[in-house]
């Protein structure tokens, strides 16, 4: 039981750390696209770590099948629906001309599709 | 859990103030969606899951979508 508790605590710590990194990135980054990259960080490991932890907690501590299975289903839905939204908002931002920090001088989308 | 309750109430108030004071209509709609998800969380923290389901589907999703469709019909309020 003590080993299970350590595993669940470690999963919660991992999730919290990556969520903190993502939020700091969203606040600090200089342009919209880099903010998008940082927000993927919270949505993947920040959410999936906590959901894996609650799934283990439901299966082995509470002995409830429903809580464990529903945690896994929520994680799968986040995994499927988040990239669609991220891709759509990135393309819309580039199409309507949001400012992009171009430090490397490499903008092949803007070169191929001039406004 | 009363700490989380306090934090969620602060978030609701800040979102409501942003909704009332910001200039751009689209930003107004987005912050109202954030307000809807905070309100759904608050209902869940008060042990009312049925109200929370209704609020989460209506306040966080349906209202912004309807407002966006209306904004598209009037062409962004310009003209």
């Amino acid at each position: 039981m003590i080993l299970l508790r350590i595993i669940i605590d470690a999963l919660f710590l991992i999730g919290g750390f990556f969520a903190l990194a993502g939020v700091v990135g969203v606040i600090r980054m200089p342009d919209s696209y880099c903010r998008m990259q940082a927000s993927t960080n919270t949505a993947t490991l920040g959410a999936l770590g906590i959901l894996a932890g609650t799934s283990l907690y439901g299966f082995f501590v509470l002995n409830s099948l429903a809580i464990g299975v529903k945690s896994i289903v929520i994680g799968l839905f986040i995994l499927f629906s988040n990239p669609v939204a991220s891709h759509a908002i990135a393309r819309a931002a580039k199409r309507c001309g949001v400012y992009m920090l171009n430090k490397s001088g490499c903008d092949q989308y803007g070169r191929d599709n001039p406004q | 859990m009363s700490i989380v309750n306090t934090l969620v109430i602060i978030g609701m108030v800040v979102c409501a103030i942003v909704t009332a004071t910001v200039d751009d209509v689209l930003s107004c709609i987005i912050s109202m969606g954030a307000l809807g998800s905070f309100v759904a969380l608050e209902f869940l923290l008060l042990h009312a899951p049925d109200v929370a389901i209704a609020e989460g589907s209506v306040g966080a999703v349906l209202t912004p979508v309807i407002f966006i469709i209306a904004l598209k019909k009037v062409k962004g309020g310009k003209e």
Partner: protein
Amino acid sequence: MTGFNVELTITAAFYGLLCIALLYRVIKGPHAVDRVIAGDSIDSMTVVIMALFGALSNRAVYFDMALIVSLLGFISTVVISRYLEGRS
């Protein structure tokens, strides 16, 4: 098994604090795209807090709520991005 309550509460409070920190980007974001990104992150963090609260109070009904928010949350983002794409 009441020993777990401490971790669950602390994690939920930490995520609530992060939501408040994200509101800075909602208030100040120069363009609507920044606000959309911050709102999307707030949605996924709300789902996490709901799951933690459901595990804390040991009721599977609360997980349905998190499921619905995570399912419908991305629809508004996609609709807003379609609108932005058509406006240019």
